[in-house]
C-alpha cells in the first residue's frame, strides 16, 4: 500500500491520507480529478471492486461530500475517495462508464438528496418513493417528524420522557423535592 500511496502522491499534489484501520484508508480528491483518479485506480492499481457510492450533507459548510469506496482483491485493502461539491448547484459528473452499476447509486442519490448526475442512465426514475412532492428527504433541513405528524394521523396517548429527568426523580426522590439542600446543577 505504501507504494500505491507514493505513486498517487506523484499524480495529485497535497495528498491527504487518513488511515482509519490497517485495511481502510481515505483520501480527498477534487471534483475535476475524480474521473482520472478512478480510472487510474481501477485499471492500473487493481482496485477493481466498487463497494458503494454515497453522499453526506454538510449543511453548515454549504457542501455535499460524495464517497466512493473501492476494494482491491490482491492486497485486500479498502480505499475511500471523498469529493466535496457545492450545495447550491448540486451536480457531479457521472462515472457510469467506469463501473456500469453506478447508475443505481446515482439514481438513489438523485432521489434522496437532489444531486443531479447529467448523462447517467435512468437517473430520473423513482427508486423507493412514489408520488413524492416535497424536497428530497435525506437533506438535513427536511423535518421528518413534523411531516409525519402532518400527513399521517398519530394516535393520541404517546408520551416521551427525558431520561435524565426520569432517572433523577426515580433515584433521588426526596433529594429532588427537598428545598433546603443546595443542588449543584442549578
Amino acid at each position, binding site marked *: 500500500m505504501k507504494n500505491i500511496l507514493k505513486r498517487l502522491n506523484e499524480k495529485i499534489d497535497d495528498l491527504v491520507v487518513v488511515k482509519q*484501520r490497517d485495511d481502510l484508508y*481515505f483520501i480527498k480528491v477534487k471534483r475535476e480529478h475524480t474521473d482520472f483518479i478512478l480510472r487510474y485506480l481501477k485499471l492500473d492499481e487493481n482496485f477493481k*471492486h466498487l*463497494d*458503494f457510492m454515497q453522499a453526506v450533507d454538510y449543511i453548515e459548510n454549504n457542501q455535499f461530500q460524495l464517497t466512493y469506496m473501492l476494494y482491491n482483491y490482491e492486497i485486500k485493502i479498502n480505499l475511500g475517495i471523498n469529493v466535496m461539491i457545492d450545495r447550491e448547484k448540486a451536480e457531479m459528473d457521472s462515472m457510469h462508464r467506469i463501473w456500469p452499476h453506478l447508475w443505481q447509486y446515482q439514481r438513489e442519490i438523485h432521489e434522496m438528496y437532489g444531486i443531479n448526475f447529467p448523462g447517467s442512465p435512468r437517473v430520473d426514475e423513482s427508486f423507493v418513493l412514489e408520488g413524492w412532492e416535497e424536497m428530497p428527504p435525506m437533506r438535513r433541513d427536511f423535518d421528518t417528524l413534523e411531516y409525519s405528524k402532518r400527513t399521517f394521523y398519530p394516535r393520541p396517548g404517546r408520551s416521551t420522557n427525558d431520561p435524565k429527568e426520569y432517572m433523577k426523580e426515580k433515584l433521588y426522590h426526596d433529594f429532588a423535592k427537598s428545598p433546603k439542600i443546595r443542588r449543584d446543577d442549578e
Partner: protein
Amino acid sequence: MNRDSESKYKGFEADRSKYPQMEKDKPVIDLESQKFIKTWQGPQHPGVTGNMSVELIINGDEIVDAKTHVGYLHRGFEKLMERRRYIQCFPIVCRICVPEPDTNEYCVSAAMEDLAGIVVPEKALWLRTLNLEMSRVGSFLMWLGGQAGSLGMGAISQWTIGMRDFWLDLFEEMTGGRVYHMYMIPGGVRKDLPEGFRDRTRELIVRTRALLFDIEKTFFNNAIVKARLKGLGVISPEMVTEYGIVGPSARASGIEDDIRINNPYGKYAELDMKMITSDVGDAYARAEVRYQELHQSLDLISQIMDKMPEGGKIQAKLPNVLHWKIPAGQTYVKAESTRGEHGFYMVSDGTKYPRRVFARGASYTHAISVLEKLAVNISISDLAALMVSLHTCPPEIER
C-alpha cells in the same frame, strides 16, 4: 434460450420465423402489435422473495424485458438514525434485514467501536462469532426452502423451516428473542451463555446434518432440479466486477471473495476454514456453493464450542451511553452475511447524534442490475427460481 449445452434441450431448436424482428440482438418491442404482454410479477405473489416486484414484457412464454421495482419496504432508516442517539439506534437497526438480523448489529457496534476506540474483550469476540454463525445457518435453511419451493417442491421447504425453528429456540435461550435479538452492543455482548447450551447445540448440529443428508438425496441428486437449474442465469467472471456482485454468487464464478478469510473480524482468524468456489457460474453451482457453506457453518460452530473459554468479561466499559459523544471521523465496516458483503458506512461529527449512517445491503446490485440482465430470454416459470438463486432480499436494498 441461453442454456448450457449439457442440458436436456439439446435437440430442440426454436422456430424463430414467427417471432418479432430483432435489431442489434434485441427484439423490437411494440406493445400495440399484440405480440407482447406487459405484466407484473408483483408484490402480492408467491413467487417473489419478499415484497418486491418485477415488471415483465413477455412474448408467449419467454421474457423479453424486465424491470425491477423496489420500495415497498422503505422506512427511511438513515433519516431515523440521524434523529436518535447512538445507543438508541440498536432497536431499529436489526430490522434492516429480516431473515438475518445479526450482521447489522455487528456492523453498527463495530463501527462505533472503531470511531470511539473501544477494545472488545476476548469472550465477547467468541460469542459474537458464535451468534453470527448461528444466524448464517438459519438464513441458509430459509434460502434452501425457498429454492426448493420455487421449483415446486414444497416438502423440502417444510422440512427446512421446521428445522430452523429449533435454531430459533437456541437463539431464544441465548439472547431472549426469536427473530430480533439486539444482542451485540458497542463494547461486547449483553449476556453470557446459559448452562447446558453447548450440549444442546451439539445435539442440534447432529440433527441438522441428518436432515441435510436427506435433502442432498432429494434435491441435489434430482434429475428435474438439474435440468431446470443447470444453465440458468450464468454469471461470467467479468460480470462480477462490472456489476459489483458479492458473496456466493461471485464465488460460484471463481472469484475468491470471502471477508471472513480475506479481512478477518471477530475470531475467524483462529478458526480453520477454507474458501469454497466453483467454476461454472450457473444456478446449480450457486446452490451447491451455498449448501457447502451451510456445512461449513455447522463445522465452525462445533469448532467454536470446542475452543471457546468458559468465563471472562463480556463487555468493555462504556461512558454514560445516553450522553455519549463520538469524535468526528468516518469508517466502513463489513461482515459476511449469507448474501455477501454487508457493510455499514458511518460518519460522526462529535455530537450525540450520528451524522450519516449508510447500510450497504449485500443484494443491492443483485436484485436490480443483475436480475434485469439475466432475466432476458428465460421462460417465465424460471423467474422465481432465478430470483431465489441470486438470493435477493428486498428489505436491505431499500432499507
